[in-house]
């Protein structure tokens, strides 16, 4: 059961990446390759707030949320906006990768290349739960991830803005013709995705350390989570992330510490072959 808890905690991080991809994809039709980097910056800002400034938990979380939201807005302005309205809209696949590289470099320049320890905000004493041990901070990570994922899912189905975001993902022009300000919606999605990444900086950092190339590994597993869950489905991304984390943890435990990545990518390829739209039948067909 300890392995299950470890898998769920790692999986929560992958779910967060998948959720971030989905928020932006649903509202603006853009795949933001730099989202994992936003979470990476979130862990550094959490370090800066908690350690450098010595702030309490709430101000640290707010600082990280606001900081990452601003960075996401800058990314939207620089890497996305100039390409909107162009017929070859797949340019954003490249500019968001560029944004990711820039963020990696900036983080290394500002915070250095050595991993920094983000303090755990909860007691370090492990809890024994359902026959396994789990750190309180990991339990909080799992819980809050579930809340955010399910919350965003319900929001997109039961509020006017949420429906508008689904509609504009399906057909941008038709959404404009109904009076929806699709551009504002896209900008808002970046801000929300950034803020969520910032909020989780403290909890994620407590598990992974703040390190400049965190984004790379997380991005890959975020993809796997999306592939399992189906792009455009928040619940799918949530489940996909947790499933990826569990596969990773069990492979590490029972096959060997050298193999979890290979096993995860084996599962990834298998799903691409068998169910290219993901196990939960994508809510959104990608037109290329």
């Amino acid at each position: 059961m300890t392995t299950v808890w470890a898998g769920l905690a790692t999986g929560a991080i992958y779910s967060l990446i998948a959720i971030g991809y989905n928020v932006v994809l649903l509202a603006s039709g853009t795949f933001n390759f730099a989202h994992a980097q936003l979470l990476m910056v979130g862990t550094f800002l959490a370090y800066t707030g908690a350690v450098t400034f010595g702030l309490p938990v709430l101000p640290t979380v707010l600082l990280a949320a606001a900081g990452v939201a601003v960075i996401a807005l800058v990314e939207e302005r620089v890497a996305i906006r100039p390409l909107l309205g162009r017929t070859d809209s797949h340019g954003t696949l490249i500019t968001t990768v560029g944004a990711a590289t820039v963020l990696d470099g900036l983080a290394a320049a500002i915070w250095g290349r050595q991993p920094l320890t983000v303090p755990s905000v909860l007691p370090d004493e492990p809890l024994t739960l359902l026959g396994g041990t789990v750190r309180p901070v990991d339990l909080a990570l799992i819980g809050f991830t579930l809340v955010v994922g399910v919350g965003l899912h319900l929001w997109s189905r039961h509020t006017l803005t949420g429906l508008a975001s689904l509609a504009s993902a399906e057909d941008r022009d038709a959404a404009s013709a109904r009076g929806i300000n699709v551009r504002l919606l896209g900008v808002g999605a970046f801000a929300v995705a950034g803020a969520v990444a910032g909020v989780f900086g403290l909890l994620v950092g407590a598990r992974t350390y703040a390190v400049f190339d965190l984004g790379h590994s997380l991005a890959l597993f975020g993809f796997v989570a999306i592939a399992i869950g189906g792009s455009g489905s928040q619940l799918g991304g949530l489940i996909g992330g947790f499933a990826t984390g569990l596969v990773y943890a069990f492979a590490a435990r029972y096959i060997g510490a050298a193999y979890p990545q290979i096993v995860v990518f084996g599962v990834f390829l298998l799903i691409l072959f068998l169910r290219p739209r993901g196990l939960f039948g994508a809510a959104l067909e990608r037109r290329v």
Partner: protein
Amino acid sequence: MLSVTGVTGGYGDLRVLWDVEATVRPGRITVVLGRNGAGKTSLLSAVAGLLPTVSGGRIELDGQDLAGAPAHRRVRAGLALVQENKRVFRARTVEENLLLGGYTLGGFGLRGGARRAALEQAYERFPVLRQRRRALAGSLSGGQQQMLAIGQALMPGPKLLMLDEPSAGLAPSIVNEVLAMVAALRDQEGLSILLVEQRIEHALEIADDVAVMENGRIITAGPKSVFDDGAVIREVYLGRSGEELTTGNQ
């Protein structure tokens, strides 16, 4: 009252509209005729704010110039467009589509205030949509999808309704029904309507005014009576150069 003057535009460097003029009188139907590729859909897109490039010209609705406004603001000003091919949100339910149609109506709640009233009105207008309100729009028949598209466009209570080939892809028995409904929107609710329609005879039956497009230009326009003998229209569809027609009619 819609008045379009001197609108030129297209897709980037590709121009598809040249100095277009068109009017829709209050409570009347203007039908736009022309062969495939004449620029009819582009004209509606330009008025709705969806044509990527529009250079110059005025698009006035009741005296308010909307030429520079983004599409979503034109909806708030009272323009409504029913795009071709029954373009509803196929992955959303019928009711969600209608609620999205009422996006610009006030009120925070999804089914609150003005949206609830407009939804009720849409269901009264199209009872079949109430029966199928939880069905995905993509699962409706062609005729039902067209009703949904029209019901969606009517949700905010527009001043001007634009319809792009509402009869395309529908069974012949339904075509009359759809066009009769368009006429009823004018007769009973006083809507001004700009209609693009390939079924010329059906469209002329309900038209008040006619505009004929060719190669991205309006080559002739006027009250339907001018076109009664059918000569102009025959020539447009069967061929003869637009220039001769222009000089012959102005």
